[in-house]
């Protein structure tokens, strides 16, 4: 495998603004759910003890849920961005 310098700086991406906006929206969505987790852990530990799935408590389910949700959001984001990049960069559109 060769490891030559890649022409990175010349890369032009018409979809970058659109992707940045989508990224921020998804970031806030995740941030709110994450804050919900931290808030529940700190201010309502008793609630965290409640069994919610197959006898497993909310703390485990919420914690694992945050990990799985991050993966899902990542996949959705990539799918939407790739679609938009293909559409905007092929047509040379810039919004």
């Amino acid at each position, binding site marked *: *495998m*060769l*490891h*030559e*310098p*890649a022409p*990175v*700086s010349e*890369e032009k*991406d018409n979809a*970058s603004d659109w*992707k*940045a906006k989508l*990224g*921020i929206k*998804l*970031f806030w969505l*995740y*941030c709110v759910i*994450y804050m919900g*987790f*931290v808030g529940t*852990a*700190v*201010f309502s*530990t008793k609630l*965290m*003890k409640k*069994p919610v*799935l*197959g*006898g*497993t*408590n909310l*703390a*485990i389910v919420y*914690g*694992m849920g*945050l*990990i*799985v949700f*991050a*993966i899902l*959001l*990542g*996949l959705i*984001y*990539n799918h939407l*961005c*790739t679609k938009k*990049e293909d559409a905007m960069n092929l047509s040379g559109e810039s919004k």
Partner: protein
Amino acid sequence: MNYIANPIAIAIFLAFVGFVLGMSFYFARKARSAKNYFAAGGTIHWFVNGIAFAGDYLSAASFLGICGLIATMGYDGFLYSIGYLAGWIVALFVVAEPMKRLGKYTFTDALDSTFNSKGIQFMAAVSTLTVSIFYLIPQMVGAGSLVTPLLGLPQWMGVVMVGIIVITIVATAGMTSTTYVQFLKGGLLIIFSTVLSIGVLHKGLSTTPREETFVPREINAQTAMAGQLDDFSFVATITDEKTGQTFVKLTSDMVLEAETPPRAVASWWEVEGTKLIETQAKTVTSAGEELYNGAPKKAGLFKSVGRVIELPDGQTETGRLGVFKYFSTIQKSTIVRYPKSAIVSLNDSGDTVTLYRPQVTSGEDLMVPGQKFKIKDGMGKLNFISLMMALFFGTASLPHILIRYYTVPSQRDARKSTIVAIAAIGFFYVLTLFMGLGAMTLGVIDLGDGNMSAPLLAKSFNIVLFSIISAVAFATVLGTVSGLIVAASGAVAHDLMDNFLNIKMSDQGKVKAGKISAFVVGIIAILLGIVFQGVNVAFLVGWAFAVAASANLPAIIMLLFWKRTTAKGITWSIGVGMLSALLIILTSPSMYGQYGLDMSTAWHRLDNPGIISIPLSFLTLVVVSLMTKKQAAVTA
């Protein structure tokens, strides 16, 4: 615990390290230019880069530290898994593509892309160096921990060994070899952690302890203290001033394998009502000799701990369990653990005695936050929120993670590799819960070093699995340390020498400067690794995240999203964020403990600086940018 080197373990370990070094030399021939050295030529495939990201990220802190924390503190250790992974959301949605678009070799390039400011070049390089060194400490501590059970060597030798190997790797090939080492080890770590987790579920839970696990004996207090026992002789009682708890010292004549004739071995017992409960004791005599349960370490009297004493519905064994059944069963069980908070230190006629006492905890309490983070009091809440904040914002600010965006050809590849990383890392973090709880319930925790919980869990299954897991974990440290040293050497050679000091160097000169910097940073890392021996590595990484989030994140975010940001704003923000985080850490109770001072005399009670230093860094950037706006406009 007494560690004896195993030939199989040594063979597997040496083969693995030899392979990694061979790979490094192979790629060395391809790394001739600066771009190849620092950014692997920008042509790494996104999938390889994604797994290498995971390799970089799943450092000693994740495998050794988190598993160790879960094993000793339960759910609180898992909070690190959640926070570390959540941080990738910031990296993916906010930082990945713009960083790729703006940068060339280093994170400083990206920050400085629109300003060409000497201030930014200097502060960003210093911040990269500081964060890299903070992150290096736990890696080196982890390396030392691993080498002891694997090769039977002392901790410091492990640290020195990693230092030398890594300096060799980095000084030969730079980012290319680092990437492939990370790819290999990231993949192997996930595969073998999966095997280990399946093993834990397959074994299930049992109230019958393993032969190697410590089970405290109980004797009648009155009889023992009256000297009426055949096996023990009463020596003394000592009351701990802090807790008011009384302990009894007894001796018994024992023939130790390594010694003849019989010697009097001292044991320490906690008075509980009419009973004496046995503790495990480490004694450092006034002559400097270390005794474990009254005998030298090689006698093997000091045992591993952690066990289930009660299962739901009076069961004694569960057999194989499913994922949710495993968690719900632990929630309904009762577990004996040995938290740091239960450790007592006594002075016995000049000898320092550390007593490890069992603490019975309900599974229900263990499986929610609260064992490590005392979230019931105000300062505990603040510390907890501060840590979760630093973990969330720290990932996207780590220089050795940021430079990996420059190793792929395009922004799309940067994004895709981040998603591969999130999936791989997320999956691994789910596994940490099984490995940590497995170590806790199967009684493999080493009281002297909780960081070894996951490898020792593997050892409880079989020696081959232990050897492979340890070799992979060692390679984990090698890879992460390599990445950090590349980032640090880039900061010195490229940002400081080339950009800031304007020292004109040929392409090969830059690579040479990078390699010399790698050597110096490596030596610093070795020294710090020895100093911080025994401290939980996940906890130490929490500090690195806090410094990174405070120094770098406000600058990155505001540069990308606030048009009024000025060069001076960025420079001041990095400086204030970094210094305030460092000041809070260096004056924190945990550091006081590290200095050997009374923790209660620390300047403040905040162990995690993020909640103060991150907003302060943002505020500094805004205020200084607004103040220097006119100046910037005139200059432009």
